[in-house]
């Protein structure tokens, strides 16, 4: 059977070669097609049509669209593309196919509403998406929370609508108690940083989705930085009032007993005390979403998650 053995060897070698070849070619094809047009990613852009064409397999199709939405966002967003055009339609189709997919609404609230580069800058669409979610899942308090969240982060903040959204949420059975606190804080416009911190801690607690959690962590870090810098700058101003000069470094403040040590950011890196009395971050690129501590003229890059 030596002839047969020869055939086996030849066929095996050819099989491996062609397998390697086809994998390489697939990679090339994928590269050639990463600049896919919006139409391609969506296949069909009308949620109604997608639902009709799913022939009843809408659950599976919803999962496919959801995968695409996450991939689209996770893939492109992080590498720096500023194109969110597709995020809303993808989520719209996903939720049309599977209205119970809560995480899709959470995604919408987090990334459709904020202005670029943090999101698509379409708060109206985000509100519509979450309201659609509430209609389909009236008993899920997380959605009311997301709605209030969108209104709070709208520019300008719509305290009235946010309070109303949190208030609606409190009426749902098993609602998390912090909705009541949030509703109250919205009503009195109180404690900006405190409220924000609470909102983001809640955002972290209400989801298991990695990307949403990372987003919440990034915001909490930014809040900490903003808070630190506000405090430090106040301290510097007080020193100047007392002595008439600006402190040259933090050691001066430590010597005065105003500080216990050189203040550090959440990553453990010391803050910088600038000659004009401002406080700056040592690596501002590590902190997305901060409003303070940035060098003059600093243009924030796309958000970074840790």
């Amino acid at each position, binding site marked *: 059977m030596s002839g047969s053995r020869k*055939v086996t060897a030849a066929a095996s070698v*050819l*099989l491996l070669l062609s*397998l390697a*070849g*086809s994998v390489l070619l*697939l990679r090339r*094809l*994928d590269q050639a097609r990463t600049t896919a047009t919006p139409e391609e990613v969506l296949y069909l852009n009308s949620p109604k049509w997608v639902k009709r064409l799913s022939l009843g397999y809408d659950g599976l199709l919803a999962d496919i669209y959801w995968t*695409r939405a996450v991939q689209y966002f996770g893939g492109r967003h992080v590498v720096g593309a500023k194109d969110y055009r597709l995020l809303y339609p993808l989520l719209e189709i996903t939720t049309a196919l599977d209205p119970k997919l809560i995480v899709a609404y959470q995604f919408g609230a987090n990334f459709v509403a904020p202005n670029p580069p943090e999101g698509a800058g379409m708060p109206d669409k985000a509100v519509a998406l979450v309201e659609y979610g509430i209609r389909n899942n009236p008993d899920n308090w997380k959605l009311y929370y997301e709605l209030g969240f969108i209104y709070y982060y709208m520019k300008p903040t719509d305290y009235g609508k946010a309070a109303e959204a949190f208030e609606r949420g409190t009426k749902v059975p098993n609602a998390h108690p912090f909705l009541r606190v949030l509703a109250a804080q919205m009503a009195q416009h109180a404690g900006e940083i405190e409220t924000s911190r609470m909102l983001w801690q809640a955002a972290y607690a209400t989801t298991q989705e990695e990307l949403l959690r990372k987003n919440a962590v990034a915001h909490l870090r930014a809040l900490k930085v903003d808070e630190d810098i506000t405090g430090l700058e106040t301290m510097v101003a007080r020193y100047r009032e007392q002595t008439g000069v600006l402190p040259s470094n933090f050691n001066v403040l430590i010597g005065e007993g105003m500080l216990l040590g050189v203040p550090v950011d959440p990553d453990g890196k010391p803050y910088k005390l600038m000659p004009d009395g401002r406080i700056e971050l040592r690596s501002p690129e590590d902190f997305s979403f901060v409003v303070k501590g940035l060098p003059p003229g600093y243009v924030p890059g796309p958000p970074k998650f840790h």
Partner: protein
Amino acid sequence: MSRVVYIAANTFREAVRDRVLYNLIAFAVLLSGAAILVGQISIDIERLVVVNLGLTAVSLFGVVIAIFIGIGLVSKEMEKRTLYTVLSRPVRRWEFIVGKFFGLAGTLLVNTFFMAVGVFAALLYVSHKFQSSDAWILVALFFIVLQLLILCSLALLFSSFSSPLLSAVFAFSLFVIGSFAEDLRLFARMTRGLTHGLAATAAYLVPNFSALNVIGQVAHEQPISWHLIACNTAYALAYSTMAICGAVLIFERRNLK
């Protein structure tokens, strides 16, 4: 080597004389004709509808034909024992498989040609003349042929070890999965650890039909890059070769009951 040619020629002859084939082709051509009617209802998109519906019909009927003759012609040889008389001659088993593949490929080429004539006739009826962008339709048809070649090699692979019904189910499932191959690869890229290994293996092993479907693009008269044509052609050849090698390896060892 000449025996491969003889087997291919005989397969082709056997296949093209089957009347079922003509029914399927006729149906596909009819569907292209029906596109004219649909097109007339909706203003301004006659051409679009004719191309979309016509090429879809060519593709789907081609798939059905490829799977059924691909599996039918091989399993019939085993069931009816014609294979015994072939293999009791100085014919090697790999020659049989390779010959079958080329015979089937020839049949599919001829089928697609006739169905394509139907599409172009319908197109001519609606737009009264051909335009240069219609050449892209030829590219779409070429891609359909590549897709059919891949399916046909898979049909051969499955029928080298499985029953006809199961082979048809396998081949058709792979056609469906392969149409979502890009999503599968996206999915694989997002997973980690063991899941990643499994998903990536599966994603690269299933045939990639997504890149071979450019019907929507040519219907909108968009050009197709030469790079895509070259890559797709090479991919289809590599994948078919792979499936046929697999079929040969299994078939060499198979006991013919």
